[in-house]
């Protein structure tokens, strides 16, 4: 892929993000429910006091004015102040983001290392007991609601067996000065294996819960594409040449079979961010997903706008990454 093409693709992001910011702004502004009303809650206040609060949040201006103000500031990286935190939303989001990314990455790793071997085994042993079990398992994986599965895991591992903690990112006794803000990395960099294991024990259950539907999807994709590839002429040819079966499977078939898996994985990583909202709530994970849900309920406009824009950016970038990976894995495809 040429550099010019890459830049062109990147430039195409601009109208997408612009479009997303318009849609987000319009949707949240049109959603019934008044932020000031919600903030006041059950209290009797005078009209002047209410007007003062509205003015304070900048909600006294007309909608179009607010939109251009938002857009103008957003271009400069200023997304305004959170109504509730009373600090720049970008700071609030930045504090929560590492937890979300760390959880998503661990979920992704769990999904990849379980889904690919399972998919391959299921394909090789097609229609066997293993294949059927894997198929049923993956069906369950995509069907089980995350919050239910998560609570089930909690009841078993945290309440009954008491071998894993119920919620949070790390224990109270493990205080780690942040470097990368990814606890699994920081604990190791600081030479604290005890804290690393503590963080690991906290992340296991939420990561499994979050990764489960993705594992199921990736397993199905791997199995299908593996079966497809094994029917190809070059595999038959390789078999006819008398190559060892393992060599055929792993050198020839798997490499090609993984192309769809990789691109689906990249796109599905975007949906990990969405699934985070539920998993983060169940496991008290201090991430962005929970913050966004809470912010939507109280109509914290600036925070929701910035967070959705961020999600959109991530999604677009992941798709872009999937395209690039696709061309790397399959040189016949050009961007």
């Amino acid at each position: 892929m040429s550099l010019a093409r890459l830049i062109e693709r990147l430039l195409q992001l601009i109208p997408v993000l612009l479009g997303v910011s318009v849609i987000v702004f319009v949707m949240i502004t049109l959603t019934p429910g008044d932020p000031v009303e919600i903030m006041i809650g059950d209290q009797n206040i005078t009209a002047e006091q209410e007007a003062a609060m509205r003015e304070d949040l900048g909600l006294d201006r007309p909608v179009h004015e607010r939109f251009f103000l938002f857009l103008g500031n957003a271009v400069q990286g200023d997304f305004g102040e959170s109504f509730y935190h009373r600090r720049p939303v970008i700071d609030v989001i930045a504090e929560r983001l590492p937890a979300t990314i760390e959880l998503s990455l661990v979920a992704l790793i769990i999904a990849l290392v379980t889904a690919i071997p399972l998919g391959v085994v299921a394909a090789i042993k097609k229609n066997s007991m293993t294949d059927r079990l894997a198929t049923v398992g993956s069906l369950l994986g995509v069907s089980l609601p995350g919050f239910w599965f998560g609570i089930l895991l909690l009841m078993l591992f945290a309440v009954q067996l008491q071998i894993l903690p119920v919620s949070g990112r790390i224990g109270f006794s493990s205080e780690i000065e942040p470097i990368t803000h990814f606890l699994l990395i920081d604990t190791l960099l600081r030479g604290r294996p005890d804290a690393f294991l503590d963080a690991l024990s906290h992340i296991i259950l939420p990561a499994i819960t979050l990764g489960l539907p993705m594992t199921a999807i990736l397993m199905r994709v791997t199995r299908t594409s593996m079966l497809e590839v094994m029917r190809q002429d070059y595999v038959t040819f390789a078999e006819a040449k008398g190559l060892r079966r393992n060599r055929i499977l792993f050198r020839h078939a798997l490499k090609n079979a993984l192309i769809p898996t990789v691109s689906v994985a990249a796109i599905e990583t975007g949906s990990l961010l969405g699934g985070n909202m539920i998993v983060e709530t169940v496991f008290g994970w201090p991430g962005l997903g929970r913050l966004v849900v809470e912010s939507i309920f109280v109509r914290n406009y600036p925070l929701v706008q910035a967070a959705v824009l961020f999600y959109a950016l991530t999604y677009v970038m992941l798709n872009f990454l999937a395209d690039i990976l696709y061309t790397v894995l399959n040189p016949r495809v050009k961007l």
Partner: protein
Amino acid sequence: MKHLTRIMLASAMALGSMAPAAIAEDLVVGFTADANTLDPGNHRNRETETIIRNMYDGILTRDSGMNILPQIAESYTQVSPTVYDFKIRKGILFHDGTELTPEDVKFTLDRLTSEGGTGDGQTSPRASLLGPFKSAEIVNGDTVRVTLSEPWPLLPAMLPFQEVVSKDFVEKVGTEGLATQVNGTGPFKLVEWRKGDSVIMERFEDYYGGAPGIPPVGKACVERAIFKIIPESASRVAALLAGDVHIINELPPFAVEQVRNSPNAEVMTVNGTRSFFIAMNVKGEIFDDIRVRQAVAHAIDKKLIIDKILGGNAEAINGILSPDAFGKNKDLDGYSYDPEKARALLAEAGYPDGIEVTMDVQGSYKDTAQAVASLLTKAGIKTQVAVGESGLLSQKWRTEGGEKTGDMYFTSWGNGSLDPQGIFMPTHHTAARGNSAGYSNPEVDKLLEEAATEVDREKRAEMYRKAEAIAAADVPYAYLWVPQDIYGVSKRLSGWQPSPDSRINLHDACLK
């Protein structure tokens, strides 16, 4: 495969043994939401206040019986209907070791109420909680005199919502610094705020002891206290049962039995301050007839719902006020459960075949509303429950006198101060913020307005009793119940009492 299983099991066990148990002295509260900020003057959120209140003390406070008591103030007097004097206690230290002065109290009040008081042109979102506050000045060197622009007997009941900050500290770190740093006078100091995860606090060794009216006076009992944020109720229950936390708030009624049966936890309840009711659109075509509204009131078996759905954790009400509220009219008989009478009233109103209506409710109260709807339907009021999101519903119903489109709205109003003014005025005064029914009765309006500024306590109580009786007879609302707040606590916990204002003060809490 076998090998893999073994490895996984082994690592799970290793992890299990490594999972650090909380240090023995850590008292952990499994709490529904994180603080939005640690600045006492720059939020409008109950959970934030609960957390902050363990690190900051106020001029006045409340005990678990909701009595108003001096805290940072030594005493207070009402000089005139618009002037209050607060004599400030000596020897109170901030966490940084500096002594609290009346100057700090005045600064706090000014910061809360003046325009642009929190800096950067912003005004405190808590300003309106101080009503017609006009000014604060220091008199005699040790007293802060608060002047109001009009009489407002609510001032002492509303002051516990505010905490005193250090003038020097705020000037040093600014509003921005105050959002994440704490220099209060409360029983706990901030150790670390892990945003979205926990607020870790340790005992303030030089604490002045707290309100003398709330024994024991002295330092906090535990060395460290932690608010651990667990928003999902099932997970909060799991954390309590696993022994990870020692107090959880908002224990869901469905988990009450589970906690009661557990060997290491128990249930604690306290009368809440939130009244539930069904608003009937009194200007709508159906409910403009009082007989139809009476029919609704007669059709609801409150006792049945309290017993079966709310697990017995609520008290029925026949008027808007909570049974614990000042000025509550205890002589209201209410409308007995009588579906036959309801049908007869409907027939009398011209609906011999009954009526069909919709009842709006927000998701969290859906189950209870469904049960109420089935009782209404049995009595000829065929009720469809429509679930809506709370922000949306409040815009639909809280029209401040404007036209309404719905039939019924199953809702509630909280009244943290337990002063009738805080709930009666907004729900029953013509065109008030929370008047979802669209109710308007000049006599009630007049009583509420007069009571708002009446300084004589007994006269004031009498006005509310009268107003409650009139409103109950007009039935703009079907008054339902005041639920209890339910907490799950570890059996190791002692000294802690739940409070009707839903605060969790950890000063007296100990772990066995």
